[in-house]
């Protein structure tokens, strides 16, 4: 009956040979070996990496003024140092407070540096491009969409009819449309809704669009966290004499955040990847820069090199975000389940 096995698992026979397994393993191994040899040969002998090596600065800064490139570089180095200290700081809890403080300062520092603080003249943020623009879009959108998303999630749980239903309508409405239509709205339609003479730059409009889109998703993830908190927790808070605000901020939200954290990490990773959509709408972020590079006659045809390079960068940053998420899970694990 069990034709998949030659020897049964019973008894002392440790090795159970299975002819299908052996053929399968052989096939998989040979395909894997063949393709990895081919990839190695291609990447060392056939690929022309000049499109990457000549344009590293373009990939990082875009068309940012040459003499001011130290500004975004300091900011990116700041980010990398923060990530390093956060990920490899599992033992010392004393450093947690300065670390949180440094993370809070991350976006303001970036805006201050990139827009020309410490300099003689202001620099428009629309000069920013490449990786630094991707990071700027991601971090600014996160900064705004987290509070708004949490606010929406709390409103969604409210006892007041109007508050609950308006936020429900907003969340469902936003979640039913593709991100690109929301970004399109941000780039082309927002100027029509603004009073005459008021202009908002493209990066800010993109951040606005990402914020209104992402906060609906964050609210939905947060709602799962809120719903899984037992009522006894709120009753315990009432017994201790807390008011509604204290119960929400000190008891409900921290626990809901812990539960929602894995889903929220996925949202952050999704946001980082989705900033690439702005290349369709004409911002020169990481993918946009690559598209304009590939249109350059000097580098025509080196699609594979550029896409592998892009894939590597995105993969690296997504892995860093996932590691940060896991670190926060570890830190917020009050019950000690994962230790």
């Amino acid at each position: 009956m069990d034709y998949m096995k030659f020897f049964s698992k019973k008894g002392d026979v440790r090795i159970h040979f299975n002819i299908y397994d052996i053929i399968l393993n052989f096939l998989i191994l040979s395909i894997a070996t063949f393709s990895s040899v081919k990839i190695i040969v291609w990447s060392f002998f056939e690929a022309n990496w000049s499109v990457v090596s000549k344009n590293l600065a373009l990939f990082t800064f875009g068309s940012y003024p040459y003499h001011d490139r130290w500004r975004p570089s300091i900011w990116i180095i700041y980010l990398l140092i923060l990530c390093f200290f956060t990920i490899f700081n599992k033992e010392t809890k004393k450093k947690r407070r300065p670390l949180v403080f440094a993370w809070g300062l991350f976006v303001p520092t970036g805006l201050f540096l990139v827009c020309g603080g410490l300099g003689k003249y202001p620099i428009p943020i629309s000069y920013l491009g490449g990786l630094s623009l991707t990071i700027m879009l991601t971090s600014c959108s996160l900064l705004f969409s987290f509070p708004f998303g949490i606010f929406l999630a709390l409103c969604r749980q409210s006892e007041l009819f109007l508050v609950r239903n308006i936020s429900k309508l907003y969340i469902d409405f936003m979640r039913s449309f593709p991100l690109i239509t929301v970004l399109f709205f941000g780039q082309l339609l927002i100027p029509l809704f603004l009073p005459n003479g008021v202009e908002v730059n493209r990066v800010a409009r993109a951040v606005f669009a990402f914020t209104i889109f992402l906060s609906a998703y964050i609210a939905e993830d947060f709602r799962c966290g809120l719903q899984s908190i037992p009522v006894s927790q709120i009753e315990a808070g009432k017994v201790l004499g807390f008011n509604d605000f204290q119960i929400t901020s000190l008891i409900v939200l921290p626990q809901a955040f812990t539960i929602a954290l894995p889903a929220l990490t996925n949202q952050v990773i999704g946001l980082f990847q989705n900033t690439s959509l702005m290349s369709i709408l004409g911002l020169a972020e990481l993918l946009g820069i690559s598209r304009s590079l590939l249109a350059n006659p000097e580098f025509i045809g080196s699609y594979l090199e550029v896409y592998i390079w892009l894939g590597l960068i995105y993969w690296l940053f997504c892995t860093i975000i996932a590691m940060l998420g896991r670190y926060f899970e570890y830190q917020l694990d009050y019950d000690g389940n994962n230790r």
Partner: protein
Amino acid sequence: MRISKGIFVQITLAISLFLLIFILFNNLYVNLINKQIGFTFNWLLRPAGFALSESSLNYSPSNSYAWALFVGWINSLKIILSSLIFSTLLGIIVGLFSKSKNKLLRKFSSIYVGLIRQIPLLVQLMFWYFVVFLGFNNSNNDHYSHFFSVSNKGINILNLNLTTEFSALLFGLSVFTGAYIAEVIRGGINSVPSGQWEAFKSVGLSEIQGVFYIIIPQSLPAIIPGLTSQYLNLAKNSTLAIAVGYADIYAISDTVINQTGRAIEGFLILLLSFLFLNLIITYAMEFLNRFVIANQNRRIR
């Protein structure tokens, strides 16, 4: 008369939202008057004047804008349905791989899922289009090319010709969504208690029989909600077709808006057509869900 706090909050919220919307639409009204474009849908009946790279229905540039948009909507439906089928097959296969006894298969599925989920879909789509499909040779003079051939002109299967854009989009979306569906399937299989595995082994069913007759039917209630949200995501992600030049509803709306300057009206049509797509998928999946639950109840009885 005393007004309670809750009612006060709600009234304030309603008034402020109303004010906000009023101000925004007033701005819109003023801007539309200033630009002298107004708000009409008359332009829908004028000839579109642009050609489409792909249309399943009869279309020529002399047809109206409305017809062009409808053709785009049908094109969207086409790519969504076909990549839905392929991604489901791929997802089921890879999801089963991840529960396999073979270590290499498990490794393969975890590498596949990990890699695909860490790279943006847009980069993947461009990879499939520019590197894979435009990288194929033009020549298709193999002796079996009548039945099946792949070239930089697309895929030919017998009399069916898939354009390059469609094939690249189909592969990109299926491979991407397949990774997410594999995770859904894996979670669904995990939700079946391990006693069921032991039970089907003890009545003498083989692994494959057991998985298909015992495990998968029981995991369906856990799988279908996740599958529904993945299908909705697939429908939303299909709008990235514009990056490879496939004429879907978003790409055509974009062209129409650029040509006519009717941003508000075009955007409204885009939103409505998407609402309709979402409704179709949601109701189809709800029907499937009800069918599965009814089936299971019958089996239990």
